[in-house]
């Protein structure tokens, strides 16, 4: 059987390369001297064959987490918000911390697929599918929190501008309402973008399907894709447009989330630095989550030739850069508090660093500012164990960043008489753990049923995609400069092709 063919899962076990194919080229995005068919095979088989035992184990654990979440949310709705630790003055507790955390995680995918697409970062192709899926699942997890943390969840639809018998619109001045729009449009566009990118691959699966129902279902979702030139042309255009549409959303969604805080009057929240700082933080945490997931996925599913160490290193560099931006923002906040001369503001920041929640602040500082600096070392940022550990540390740090912003700012504000303290309850912990359960459940389902790497796109960045690959010797690159085939259509070039002057680029 074809599936039994041994495919190289790791660059180290690559078969000896045929002479002159350039397998040793460090710039090459796909290692292991794979053919198009190998790629198809490597990715599709996981969506087709029976899942490994490890998958079932992981799925079982995740699903019980998801069920815990469902159960506890029912408990919250039945009894009231009091089962969480929220109080006066800390009106927003873990639910909002978790919301911002998950929205932040949900940043990486669309950034990878849209912004890096617009910037022609071809290395994105290996990870964008999984990263986008992660984004969508993270946003689903995020949406749970603002929905269920309200006192009367059954009336949550009042935040939507639906014409109604009450003749009431939502209150458009409220940042929470902006959130509703920002996060929901981000979710819809991300979902659409992901799905559009999936169509060619779904068609591939459809064509490989041996089971009637599988074929039917995949046929439905692949929208009659035949791979014709016209389809590709429309597809590319749609993809480009959606990338253009998603790009501002990537930046806006977390900016708007930061408005929840920045628009208020509370010291520690009322800060103009929040939008860029939140976006950087979100990219930071999102990439960390992608690294966490990809490190495991490439190992378990044998995708090391597709998701190479070079990919991971690039992500680690982004983590380093955004981590430093975030760290810089932390320090800037302190400077601004001092420079403003506002004693409430100054107190809020001193209280963060030295007050009752100092532990949370220093966890945040350590995880977000200090430890990512390890990535300055090339050896460390190419080390799988280091990056795996660090990516988790970064996400812990980013969760604490939201904790610090939300809770330490609220617990002591203007009037000392109303100062308080927030303590999480078991329900807080349970629902947060449960949200990871839901996230991983969805992600495992994704790994099981959907091609986890964008096959069509990866193939597009392989040397073989170059129409001249088979005509010439060399490394297969059209211009010998590491540029793969796909590049912007230059009018002159197009003209040259049209006039059959095929030698022109050479």
């Amino acid at each position, binding site marked *: 059987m074809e599936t039994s063919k041994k495919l190289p899962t790791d660059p180290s076990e690559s078969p000896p390369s045929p002479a002159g194919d350039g397998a040793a080229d460090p710039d090459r995005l796909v290692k292991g001297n794979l053919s198009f068919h190998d790629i198809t095979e490597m990715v599709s088989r996981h969506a087709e064959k029976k899942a490994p035992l490890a998958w079932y184990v992981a799925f079982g654990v995740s699903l019980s987490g998801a069920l815990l979440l469902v159960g506890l949310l029912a408990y919250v709705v039945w009894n009231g918000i009091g089962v969480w630790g929220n109080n*006066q003055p800390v009106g927003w507790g873990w639910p909002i911390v978790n919301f911002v955390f998950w929205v932040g995680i949900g940043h990486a995918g669309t950034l990878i697929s849209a912004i890096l697409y617009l910037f022609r970062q071809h290395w994105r192709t290996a990870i964008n599918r999984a990263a986008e899926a992660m984004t969508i699942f993270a946003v689903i997890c995020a949406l749970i929190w603002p929905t269920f943390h309200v006192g009367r969840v059954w009336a949550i639809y009042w*935040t939507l501008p639906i014409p109604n018998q009450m003749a009431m619109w*939502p*209150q458009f001045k409220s940042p929470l309402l902006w959130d509703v729009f920002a996060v929901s449009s981000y979710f819809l566009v991300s979902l659409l973008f992901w799905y559009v990118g999936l169509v060619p691959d779904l068609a591939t699966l459809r064509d490989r399907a041996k089971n009637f129902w599988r074929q039917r279902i995949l046929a439905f979702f692949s929208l009659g894709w035949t791979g014709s030139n016209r389809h590709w042309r429309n597809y590319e255009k749609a993809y480009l447009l959606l990338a253009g549409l998603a790009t501002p959303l990537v930046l806006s969604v977390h900016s708007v989330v930061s408005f929840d805080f920045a628009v208020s009057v509370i010291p520690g929240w009322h800060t103009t630095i929040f939008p860029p700082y939140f976006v950087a933080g979100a990219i930071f945490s999102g990439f960390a989550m992608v690294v966490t997931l990809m490190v495991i996925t490439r190992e378990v599913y044998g995708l090391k030739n597709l998701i190479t160490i070079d990919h991971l290193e690039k992500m680690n560099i982004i983590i380093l850069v955004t981590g430093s931006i975030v760290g810089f923002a932390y320090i800037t906040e302190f400077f601004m508090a001092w420079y403003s*001369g506002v004693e409430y503001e100054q107190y809020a920041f001193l209280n963060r660093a030295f007050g009752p929640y100092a532990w949370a602040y220093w966890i945040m500082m350590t995880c977000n500012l200090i430890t990512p600096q390890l990535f300055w070392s090339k050896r460390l940022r190419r080390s799988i164990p280091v990056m795996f550990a660090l990516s988790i540390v970064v996400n812990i740090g980013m969760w604490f960043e939201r904790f610090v912003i939300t809770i330490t700012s*609220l*617990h002591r504000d203007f009037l000392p008489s109303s100062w308080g303290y927030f*303590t999480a309850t078991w329900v807080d912990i349970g629902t947060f753990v449960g949200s990871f359960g839901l996230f991983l459940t969805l992600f495992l389902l994704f790994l099981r049923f959907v091609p986890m790497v964008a096959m069509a796109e990866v193939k597009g960045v392989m040397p073989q995609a170059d129409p001249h690959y088979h005509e010439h010797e060399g490394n297969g690159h059209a211009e010998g400069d590491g540029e793969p085939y796909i590049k912007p259509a230059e009018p002159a070039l197009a003209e040259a092709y049209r006039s059959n002057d095929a030698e022109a680029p050479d």
Partner: protein
Amino acid sequence: MIELDVIDAEAAAHEGEEESSGPTFWRHWPESDADEDGDDLMEFAPGDSEPPSGASRRQFLQLMGAAMAMAGLAGCRRPEEKILPYAREPETVTPGIADHYATGMPFRGVLRPVVAQSNEGRPTKIKGNSDHPAGQSGTSPYEQASVLNLYDPDRSRSVRQEGRTASWSDFVSFCRTLGNEADQRQVAVLAEETSSPTVQAMRQRMADRFPNLQWVSYAPTGTDPRRLGTQQAFGRPLRPRYELGAAEVIVSLDANFLDGRAPDFGYHTQGFAEGRRLDDAEDTMSRLYTVESRYSTTGGSSDHRLGMRAGRIPALAAALAAELGVGEAPDVSWSERERLHVQEMARDLRAAGEHGVVMAGEAQPPEVHALAMAVNQTLGALGTTVTLFDTGAAEIQPQDEALADLTASMQAGEVDTLFMLGVNPVYDAPAELGFEEALSNVRDTVHLGRLRNETAQAARWHLPRTHYLEQWGDGRAYDGTPSIVQPLIRPLYDDAHSLIEVLNVAATGVDASGHDLVREQWRAQLSEPFREQWRQALHDGYLDASGYDVASVGPATVPSIDAPASDPDEIEVVFRTDSKLLAGRFSNNPWMQELPDPITKIVWDNVAVMSRATADELGVEVQRREGNFYADRVELTLEGESVELPVWVQPGYPDGSIGVSMGYGRTIASTRESESTPFWDTSDQTNIYNGSPVAGGVDASGGSIDVVGGNVAPMRPNGGRVATGADVTPTDSGYLLATTQEEGSMQGRPIVRWATLDEFKEDPEFVNESQPPVPELGHGGDGHGEGEHGDAGGHGGDGAAQDVSGEGLEAGPGADAHAADDMPKQAAHGGDGATGEDGGQHGGGDMGPAGERQREYPMMWEEDHPKDQEAMKNNPYYQNQWGMTVDLNTCTGCNACVVACTSENNVQVVGKEEVSNGRHMYWIRNDRYYVSEEEGDDSPEMLTQPVMCQHCENAPCESVCPVAATVHSPDGTNQMVYNRCIGTRYCQNNCPYKVRRFNFYDWTKTLPTEVQMAQNPDVTVRNRGVMEKCTWCVQRIRKHQQEADNEDRDLRPNEVETACQEACPTDAITFGDLNNPESDVVEEKKNPRRYELLSYLNTKPRLSYLGRVRNTNSRLEEALSNTESEREAPAEA
């Protein structure tokens, strides 16, 4: 379930035929009882009592019938089949419109005149009777909370004999058997202190029937020392009243006269406030020195407070008196601080002469009272600042001695029948008397009480007692003015009887109604025509011009006071009634249990209060962590009695002293079953009423239940309020104390702004000197528009504001009127109409070169500001623009406003655990801050500040609500629309004053039916998951607006009063229409001390505070700081 004997049309008609042709209604007693005791009724000779004729019934019913009849219609009682709907509406009752009846609340031996509000037959709210010569509309917290005692779900419901349910007629027949060989019976009565003339008459009847009657008045902490002290000084017990409004210097020797516990609280606190009110820099104010052990609201309101061991205060009193030439100074070594205080107090008193006054605390021994009187006499204050009432009482025996004698005779088996009426000696008598043991020697013991309390469980007979709102009675106010106590509702439980009725049964064996007994008593007092006089007295709530006479006294006998015998190293324990529960009367009242102590802010607990040094010495501490206090617990042992209490470290508390409060550690027997819900439903855990008395005790099946606090009363020495030689051993640690305020320091922020009187005179606008945190913004306009503050021409803007131009900044609803509050001497421009241009003009005009003003930056949604919307201006409510001021100089932090708000607005109680989670629901809170010159000074000043919704014009809460559930009203209040709220809690986060309260659980779902009856029907109860907050009693505003509208008139100035304002005994809170120049609030807002809290945020609150001024003695201040530095100098060297 409560069953009500209701109107039976047939029987009523039948009865009517017998007596008169007019309509007849049901009577007070169930018909069946009346029939049974028909013979007994005949015992009243004509004229002895008003015959129960139809006509007199009608008289009564005209006043009372409506309320009482409707009581039967209230939804919470299951109607019997005989119920009649209103075929014709009763004359005085309009559904939805409350009735008000004057009555009186018996309180510690006096009657406090009150007016009770009745909604469809349910009393729901109490306010003071301002028509009463000794009354005012303000009250203490106790009057406010007393209404919940009526609806206490744990009230005793039935007569009990030997622990089994019995009937009232069983008890009546028991009383009849007492008549056999009455002259051989050894009958004793242990009754609460009461001023009721009818009780006096009943006592006489008892004495007539039982020649060997022993009658002891008993209160665990009564006002006995005061009576004994005046007796010592003048030969007979007199009742002093202080005219504090006329006083220039007040010295309080442990006299906590500003606390609601003081019997004449209202008069004294109001007088005090009068002397402290400052309208401008020319005003004078009194100076208050307080010497006390435990920090009290009086100490917090004083200009100089000296914390001192309670046992040393008598000696200090003697030293002070000696300084003024009265008596001899005892040989006591005083610290420099104490010496200076004595010297300066004496100097000031001497200078004030007849305008000085020395007040002795009710817990001080009689000698101190006598001495204080002698000092007052020497000062010439008798007649000016001190009035002595002659209560007509003859020489008295100390209560504690009388109780000891009674207990001794009980022990000796010399008492065979003991009536314990309205008292709870098993709980609160000193253990050294061995009362409970002695009780077992008495054959027949009868207890009358509202709860099945400790004594009820120990007594052979227990009778449920009526609440004062259910009974007929009478009494005298502090000044002796007699009042009738009239019921507003029929007793909730048929078995409940009043003290008068029980005494009458015991004395005569005849079951007569309280109404008849009181009427009979008053028939003698009132002139003819009796009927009209009676009606008038009921209507007014008092009988005019019949108070006590002012006593004329000879020179006071000066007692000699020795140096305290006790070793100063020995730990003393000071016993006081609790500031919330008294000695137990309010133990089972959740409003009071959850009311934060005015000083410690602790709820649902009693503590052993001590100073830091004492705590260190004992090796105990209170840790503040995670938003709560975790205290070590100590075992206090005195004379073999011990109690375990958590420790509380209190600044300003004297070393070597431990303060404890009574009223806790109850064992009340429940009459209700507990409810248990499935594991996913937490309402059984969050329901504070679940199955047991809220104060703790025993549940319906006899199991014991967690008790709130520990009972210290048995440790109390008989005859004293202070004990020495206590043994204190730490037991365990980590006991959670729930408080509503965790942080006691203002952190140097200009929250409560204050100055000394001299500073105020120098700079009347000192409140602006407290630098706003953004000086660049605040001071740009310095020097501009000077003198315009207050009298700046108000540019009445549009619409309603026009007629008030000229009233300056108070005139209008204009947001920018308040913009410049933190900007000293800036013209706060008149008013209203602040459209963008108008504001821009002002801004430009006043721009100083030094900086920029906040006005330069228009609000983001300026054009859209609600006040500028056409729809608002077209709204009739726009005519009124509400505003409030709170005078921090007269606010004493007594908590009356907090309880009044709870009662008016159906604010729910959440229990200790939820308070410790930071989820209390109070709409108004009293913030308490300690201030001292230096860090760590252990005798700080205390400042209190009531904080409620500030009704900001630029409310931060409004703009962040995604569903527009909190909005601005056309009349300028910030409104909360519960129905619209989805509970995002963003408004709560964004409120800089943190006055918004979220319903984390469904507090009203589990309310017992009885407690539901206490809810104000004009205010909705809130659902789980919605935000709530102070509305400035919008229901009252609307009610008055509707009334005005019906009467086709404008609202009168000051017509609308909020509940907190109404309850405030010092009138520190002023509320009214800023658009009406005649409103008091407009006047108050012109006060130079006015400032707005956190106004630098540009929230533009409609609530202003008037800064506090202390009238300190600069000589004393200086001398004290010199000694401080002297003391420190060697330490540094």
